[in-house]
């Protein structure tokens, strides 16, 4: 299990994470980010990619 943390003060809801880890991140009807704070280990590569592509660098994996 991995823990995901998004700094919602930094997040600008660009939604780039959605492409990298679609099971965990999505933009709601108001274009606001929704995400799962916990994910299966099998998602680690996807979450790391989501961390990489966030323009605001707002996502981190809590180790």
């Amino acid at each position: 299990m991995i823990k995901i943390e998004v700094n919602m003060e930094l997040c600008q809801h660009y939604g780039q994470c959605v492409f990298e880890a679609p099971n965990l991140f999505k933009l709601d009807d108001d274009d606001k980010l929704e995400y799962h704070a916990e994910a299966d280990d099998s998602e680690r590569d996807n979450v790391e990619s989501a961390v990489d592509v966030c323009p605001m660098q707002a996502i981190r994996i809590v180790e």
Partner: protein
Amino acid sequence: MSNQPSTSARCRPFESSSSAVPDAVPVTIAPVIIVGASLGALRTAEALRRAGYAGPLTVIGEEPHAPYNRPPLSKEVLSTGVSHSAVAFPARAATADVEWMLSARVVSADLEARTVTADDGRKHPWRALVIATGLRSRRLDLPLIAGRHTVRTLDDAMALRDELVPGASVVMVGAGFIGCEVAATARKLGCEVTIVAPGAEPLIRPLGALVGAELRRRHEQHGVSFALGRTVAAILGEVAFEGLQLDTGEVIAGDVLVEAIGSVCNTDWLDGTSLDLTDGVLADSALRAVSTDGTAHDDIYVVGDIARFPNRMFDDVARRIEHWNIPTDTGKRVGAVLGAWLADDGSFAELVTREFTPMPAFWSNQFEVGVQAYGLPALTDGDIRILQGELSGAVAVGYYRADRLVGVVGLGLKAELLPYRQQITALASGKLT
């Protein structure tokens, strides 16, 4: 205090207490050298380790700072004054043993002898070379006086921040993304702002006149002035900046001059080599550097916005793409391809031929307007359509070439752009124009 390398740090591992080279690696093996120490270098190093390369890896870069995120430089860094630690990319365990030589500029390369030479005269042999030196700001060819600024590096932004005080009069030369973003930030900080640019509208080259005019209208609503269709004739002031004289004779007085007139590729250190340096460094779709005779080098790669490479999502034309996602996409690609070449496990030939079609993506915040785009709007043949919404509100604008969507730009829209992004992606799998 930052715990990462700072000013004048040389030859220090990037946030690591271990030695630079693991004990298991014989010191006689030349390292992979990445020249340039920004985001592209970091992603390349990470991807090389992910691909299984455990040998020596050295990054040599001119800036004193470890890799940091540049988008906040024109916004948050100017408005709230964050430090390097706030914009630095987190270091990962996998790259803890990478040697980071910061504040060190590579001045030349010898591709036959496989060395690069740094500005202290030292020669560094390499087994493979990654070119990641990126761009620098283009400057007006005018006398250097106090009060002239640009925004490319963290140090640039820090220096400008100190001058953006309420009531200061800022003259911005250039109406591209950096120019418009810095203008908006300066206005929000209480400065008077005038944008001078040769185009008929701001952002006309990347986004076209339709969207450019709308963004101008929104800037004007916030009190930004424009002098468009004008060029700079002279700079006024002998010790410090006092104003600009335009080609029309008109004078724009000001306290602070910001130059955002595009960028220049940092290829000087490769002059005299066989590489094709026509615009950046030419690379094939595996991002191998290509010589003027067409030879692609298995041991030399190019990453980031200095790489001119073909993206078959659009066509076979090699282009440089100055978007934020490109250092990450190209760095990962080079890590995989070069990692396979270094491993010599037979996977290299297949990897080289694998399609590489990164989706260009960019974002911009100017006042309350969030601009978001996918694809290459500038490739349009002039066929620009409003896809949904209204220009004066939230809108998605499509850019077509030969009746195919090649780019989409949203003002105030995000999730709604995703189906259009999908249409552009479909270009890659469909037949090429």
